């Protein structure tokens, strides 16, 4: 990998890869499981839990002086097994990349361009991200650093104008049914935390290794805070039973008010546009890691992999045929996510630890 990134850029990449489809559906997915308005507690608890684990992971990676995760896996699993594991990881990356572009095309089809063929929307986005990815991680970092503040400012501005329709009574009572449903709902937010696992693969590229932890945590908490605000505002506006009933709760929420007096009456357009940028970032980042992973496994050229992945991602994103299947796909990816984030690094760490201590003996 040529070119190292700063810890601030790391934060931007992590944030951008987390802010994807999760933000638009999260009030529903969480409320469905929790059955009350306590989803924000789930989000906060989940966030803190993952943050603690992330700190632990950083310490682990630092201890073993990991510069590249695929080389590290080779040390842990041996050459052949590591290739298989690596391939599975790459498959997951391809899966998420296709899912994000698919979700975007679904949103665009429904709210913006009804008659434009989905294939065109999908292909345009894939090709645009391939073009970006020829610049490797440094280019992605620059795009993320540019898009992230824009997204945050626009989203917060829209939220500020929503205050009139928010009814805080709807998110009370807090913990009406006790902690148990909250605990049960803990797994439901997984989709929203997609993206945090990428820092394991980014670990070696950061210039100043001592700042990795602060970069990752900053990048992690920006979306988490946005999620909590989103959840509270959306549920407070739509009420719990309604949130469970609508497909895109965050967009429905923004459609429930309009601003008079300014030339921008309808704000959902701005959210949609910003979110296309976010979908693009998320997609590009996952795409990059898929290509990068393949380069490590097959030891071929990075550019070849970029091009090979175009039809793969395209076809994969063509498989789910309706809204239900799209949400099913996200559920499936939700099961793999903890394995990549928690299972894999922990197992790799233990094996490497054992191997290294044996060698030193």
């Amino acid at each position, binding site marked *: 990998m040529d070119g190292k990134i700063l810890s601030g850029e790391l934060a931007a990449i992590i944030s951008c890869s987390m802010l994807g489809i999760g933000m638009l559906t999260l009030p529903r997915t969480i409320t469905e499981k929790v059955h009350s308005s306590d989803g924000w507690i789930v989000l906060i608890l989940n966030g803190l839990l993952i943050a603690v684990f992330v700190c632990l992971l950083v310490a682990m990676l630092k201890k073993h002086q990991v510069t590249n995760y695929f080389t590290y896996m080779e040390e842990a699993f041996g050459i052949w097994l590591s290739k298989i594991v690596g391939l599975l990881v790459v498959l997951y990356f391809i899966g998420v990349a296709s899912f994000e572009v698919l979700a975007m095309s679904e949103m665009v089809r*429904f*709210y*913006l*361009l*009804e*008659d*434009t*063929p989905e294939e*065109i929307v999908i292909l345009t986005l894939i090709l645009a991200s391939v073009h970006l990815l020829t610049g490797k991680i440094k280019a992605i970092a620059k795009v993320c650093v540019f898009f992230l503040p824009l997204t945050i400012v626009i989203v917060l501005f829209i939220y500020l104008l929503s205050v009139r*329709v928010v009814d805080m*009574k*709807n998110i*009370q*009572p807090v913990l*009406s*049914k006790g902690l148990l449903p909250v605990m049960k709902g803990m797994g439901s937010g997984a989709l929203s935390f997609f993206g945090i696992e990428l820092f394991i693969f980014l670990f070696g590229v950061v210039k100043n290794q001592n700042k990795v932890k602060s970069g990752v945590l900053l990048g992690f908490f920006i979306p988490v805070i946005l999620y909590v605000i989103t959840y509270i505002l959306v549920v407070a*506006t*739509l*009420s*719990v*039973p*309604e949130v469970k*009933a*609508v497909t895109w709760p965050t967009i*429905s929420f923004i*459609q*429930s*008010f*309009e601003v008079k007096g300014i030339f921008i009456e*309808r704000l959902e357009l701005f959210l949609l546009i910003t979110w296309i940028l976010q979908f693009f970032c998320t997609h590009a980042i996952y795409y990059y890691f898929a290509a990068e992973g393949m380069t490590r496994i097959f030891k071929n050229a990075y550019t070849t992999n970029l091009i090979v992945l175009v039809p793969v991602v395209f076809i994969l994103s063509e498989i789910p045929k309706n809204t239900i299947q799209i949400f099913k796909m996200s559920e499936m990816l939700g099961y793999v996510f903890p394995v990549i984030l928690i299972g894999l690094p922990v197992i790799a760490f233990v094996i490497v630890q054992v191997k290294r201590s044996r060698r030193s003996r």
Partner: protein
Amino acid sequence: MKRLWVFLLIPLLSGCWDSENIEELSLVVGVGIDLSKNKNEIMLTQQILVPPGYSLQENQAKLKFKNVTVSAKTLHEAIRDSLLLTNTVLTNHQRILLINEEVLREIPMEAIINQSIRDNNTRRSCFIFLTKRPTKEILQRADDGEIPSNVIYDLKDNEKRTNKILPTLTLGQASSSLQSDGSFAIQAVDIKGGKLILQGAGVINNSKLVGLMNNKDIESLNWLNGSVKGGIIEAVHHGAPFSVEVDKRRRRKITTELNGDQLTINISVGYTARLSEDWYDKENSFKESYLKEAERKAEEKVKKDVEKIIWKLQHQYKTGVAGLYRYVENQHPKFWEKNKEKWDEIFSEADIKYQVDLKIIDFGSKGGIK
């Protein structure tokens, strides 16, 4: 090789797939729903804007809108059928939805607004009104060529000046309420003296229209809800009428108590006000005791009105339109969980105590007579 890129870029210049010429679109500003004469069908009236200067030469005083009416079994079918008469309809800018009383007696409201909620273009911020007359008639009522939908839309801005208007009900709110306890009041529109007027309201319970309210009831309901934003309280003291203008809400507090299964709801609201008119010939507003007396009389008047509406809600409509269930849910979640199915019953038997506290802070530019 470099030139190849230029050729590849050409398709991008060919324009947008979804582009449509604006003069070929029908911008819908208002929609009305009636029962059709055909059995099991509903009638949909769409009010469509006609761009100014569209046919300037023919007729100067041409209307700024046109109405398209079609009937079908479902609303979406009706919308599609309307395409036989007009250009592609665009509901992005729909401001109001009028529903005829008869419709809500026959068809659940949930079903009536279903299409609009599902639709990707109609916004959840569009307002819903009830009508006694056929909505078709209301949407045709144009004074000075104004667009009826916009007239109705703007009328609701007056809620700062009068308390005979219910807080506006948006499509989104209606949908949320129908998902929750399903009872709320909706403002009605009528024609009086050839003009469009906001008058009366309907009470919806479980998606059905269960009763009608007059302006007096609306006023009392607003007091009960604490949603009064302005307007006048008329009362009598020393045998002469006087009016107090409501200024600002200072507080609103609702507590609920449970005694076994008996629910008590305590509501207390506080407002500042102005003595705006007084017919008593020995008025002396410069004296504090005089104002205190007026305050008390006005409070009594409000309290009496509110008690009447509480009685009506509990015995006539048997439903908690006022959204009080939220407070029960929040303050006694366990009780609510157990009893939410029979909330209407519990509400009807609840003990509702209402307190109003008015503070007259000024009396205008005149305070005494003689």
